[in-house]
Every structure is written in C-alpha cells, then in structure tokens.
C-alpha cells in the first residue's frame, strides 16, 4: 500500500471525479477534489498536495493553464501534474507538456494504468526529495569538516565497488542488488554527518586528540545515526534513509566487537556499516596526514589483510581483494589532501600490523 500521499483531483465531470477518487483511495492515497481550475489552484496553494490529476477541458480554467500557473508559482516542493483528457491527439499532449505537465491519462482510464502512472510520479517525487536531501546533508557536512575535499567522492566509489562485487556473490544476491549498489553510492558520503554536532575545539583540533576529546568525537556516530533514524522513522518506506542511518551509526564498528559506538560484532553490524568501514579506513591509509605520508596501496592492503576478521568482515576484505585494481585506480584518480582526525585512532590501532607487511 502506498504511503499517504495527498492527491488533488481537479475535474468538472462528477462521474470521472468519483471514479478517480475511489481508485486513488483504493490505492491508499489521501484525496481531495476540486470542481474547476480556480478552485484547484487555491487548493494547490495550500501546499498540501504533491500530486495533481486534472481534467483538460474545464470551465473557467483549462487543465494546461492550471498546470502553467502552478509551475509559475515556483512552489517550494515539486507538484507532479497529470493531465486527464478525452482528447488523445498530439496537439493536446504538446500543449499539456509545454505547460509543464508530467504525464497524461486518456479517458476512460484503467485503474491499473492509473496505478502505474502514479507510481512513476511517486518515484519522481521520491528521487527529487532524496537527491536534494542527500546533496544538502553532504554539503552541510563538508562545511564542518577539515577532511580533504575528495574524501567523500572516494568513499562513494570505494563503497560502490565493494557492494558491486558482493552483488555478484550468491550469498549476497538477495541483499545486494543494483538498487542497493546505487543507494550505498549515494548515502556513503553521509557517514560522518554527525560531525556537525561535534564542537569545533575537538573537530578542528590539529593533531592528536586526548582520550576525553576522542570520546566526544566518537559521539558523531550516535549523533548522525540518531538524526537519520528520526528521518527514517518518519519515512519508513525510504530504503535509502535506513541505509544512511546504518552507515552513520556503524561505520566505526569492528567485526570482532571492539569498535564503537555500540560494540556490535559480526553480522550484527549492518552490511552498509561493514562496507563503509573498510572503504573509510582504506581511504585514510592511502591519503596523507600531518605526521605520516600517505601509504602505498600495498601497505594499506597489508594493514587491511591484518584486520581481516578483527576490524573488518572477511567477506568485505575478499571483495576488496577481488577488485583492488579499481581501488588503486580511484585512489590515483581522486588523489588529494590529508587524513581526518576521526580516523587517527583506528589507523594507530592498525599500524602495528605494518611491521609484518
């Protein structure tokens, strides 16, 4: 069942309006009806509707005119507009599309067709709000962080490569599909979003953090996780919010349970957290920081292998090994900057393994 999206039906023909209202309610939408374009426009201006289905021929204001007025109003959120008409001719379709309509339905409409067209509309609205939110949050984070400009880009790529590799494994096929790969690419830049709540004296401190400062810094996982959890709770159908929440909360967890904030172990750590944990550390190892040069891929590879089964999920390590050429390519392509202070403790913990490399 569709989440309660509010749809406005603008239709002067009472029979068609009843059919639409009934079908939309049957599909789980909240519905209001207007009998003409002027009434419809007034209702759209209340901001309560994200979708409008309007008849073309109406007294007072035609459907394309209504659509144009809505578009000219530059509303803060997009209104998906479907024109409904008995005219199937090209002239009407062109007029409607020029006015800014997103789709057409020809009377008599079939409920099945109505349903798939509304789903297309929902997908458009969802993608729009999703991409705007992700873009805004990622940018917000960049303004508060002293990490290198390309860290987020590399995180996207490394996470995507691991997820893509897993999608080809039989034991991950059910969990990791093309959609998941795309979502992890989009949401991995939010891994440190909780840093917006870390005080400047800690976040921007050059050099090593004290134990107390590190405890404060560790809270970024909880802050980010809880913020995204609140949004995910309000939008339970949005899978990307769940993934973003898990990444923010668990990308510092370790496979043996020694990570933070909750000390989760093994498969109790969400897959997205296990993927981004490796991606984040690989990026930290292969970029420069104030007291160490960037490590070569070979050194980083050795450190990651050392952390197999302790810091990292062995499957993630194997996925990394299977695609390491792509990691090298991305690291070279997006090479810049220094390592964030957040990852210093994790690297310090891993560095003894260097002796064995």
């Amino acid at each position, binding site marked *: 069942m569709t989440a309660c999206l509010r749809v406005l039906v603008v239709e002067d023909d009472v029979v068609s309006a*009843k*059919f639409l209202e009934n079908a939309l309610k049957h599909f789980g939408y909240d519905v209001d009806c207007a009998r003409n374009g002027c009434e419809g426009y007034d209702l759209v201006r209340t901001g309560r509707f994200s979708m409008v289905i309007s008849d073309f021929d109406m007294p007072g204001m035609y459907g394309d005119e209504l659509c144009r007025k809505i578009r000219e109003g530059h509303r803060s959120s997009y209104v998906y507009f479907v024109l409904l008409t*008995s005219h199937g001719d090209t002239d009407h379709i062109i007029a409607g599309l020029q006015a800014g309509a997103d789709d057409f339905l020809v*009377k008599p409409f079939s409920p099945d067709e109505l349903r798939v067209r509304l789903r297309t509309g929902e997908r458009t609205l969802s993608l729009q709000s999703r991409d705007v939110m992700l873009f805004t949050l990622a940018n917000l984070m960049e303004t508060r962080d002293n990490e290198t400009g390309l860290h987020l880009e590399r995180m996207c790529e490394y996470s995507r490569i691991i997820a893509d590799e897993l999608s080809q494994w039989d034991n991950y096929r059910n969990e990791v599909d093309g959609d998941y790969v795309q979502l992890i690419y989009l949401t991995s830049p939010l891994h440190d979003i909780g840093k917006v709540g870390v005080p400047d004296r800690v976040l921007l401190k050059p050099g090593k953090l004290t134990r107390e400062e590190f405890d404060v810094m560790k809270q970024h996982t909880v802050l980010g996780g809880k913020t995204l959890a609140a949004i995910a709770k309000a939008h339970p159908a949005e899978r990307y919010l769940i993934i973003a929440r898990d990444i923010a909360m668990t990308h510092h967890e370790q496979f043996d349970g020694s990570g933070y904030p909750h000390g989760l172990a093994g498969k109790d750590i969400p897959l997205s957290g296990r993927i981004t944990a490796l991606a984040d550390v690989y990026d930290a190892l292969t970029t420069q920081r104030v007291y160490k040069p960037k490590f070569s891929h070979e050194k980083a590879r050795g450190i990651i292998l050392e952390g197999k089964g302790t810091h990292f999920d062995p499957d993630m390590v194997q996925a990394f090994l299977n695609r390491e050429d792509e990691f090298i390519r991305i690291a070279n392509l997006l090479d810049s900057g220094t390592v964030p202070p957040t990852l210093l403790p994790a690297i310090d913990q891993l560095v003894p393994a260097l002796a064995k490399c």
Partner: protein
Amino acid sequence: MDTERLEHLSKFIDVDDLMKRCFGRIDFATLILGVLNDSCEADVCELEEALTEANAQRVAKVSHRLKGALANSAAFSLSKKADELSTSAHDSSTSEMSERLVDLRREWDQLAALINDQVTSKS
C-alpha cells in the same frame, strides 16, 4: 443491488468493464450509476438548451464532458454518440447537431429508465 440486476444494463453498458473499474464493488457501481443518472440527464438537458440557443461552443463543451463521463462508466456506445455530437458542433450545421442530439437523447432515456428500474429503485 446484485450483479444479476446490473446485467440488465448490458445492452448499453459493458458490465464487466464497469465492475473492473469499480474494483468489483457492487455498492460503488450502484453509486456511480446513480451519479451518472443525475449528471448525464442534466448534461443532456443542457445540450438541448444550448442547441435551442444555437450555441455550438456550449454544445461542444458539454458533449465533450459527457463523452468522458459515459466512457468512464463503460457506456461506450453513448460515449461515441456524445463524441460525434462534440465533433459536429465544431464543423456541422445545427440540423446535423440536432439529429445527433435526438439520437443521443433516445438512447440515454432507455439507459436512464433501466438504471431507475434496476439500480436506483428500492424494489
């Protein structure tokens, strides 16, 4: 009302199609036919008035609306007649519009009588 009574309308309405549009709900089909009965009668009356005034634009507009309502109610033959009237209003003589409207009125009256008898009556 039951589906058996609805079948009496099958000369004018594609009952299977109507029921599909109503998600198989006989109560909603009954409601729709009641609404159609009122709105269609009002539109046909308006068409007669518009024709008396020789107002072709109004004839085109109302018959177009009627076409949509009838099509959504699976009354396809009547919908076609409304469509033809709408087209003739753009480029035909008043006498041709008049002929088409008489034809539409005749068929509508037959369907309306059946709706009144089989659907909206309490018996």
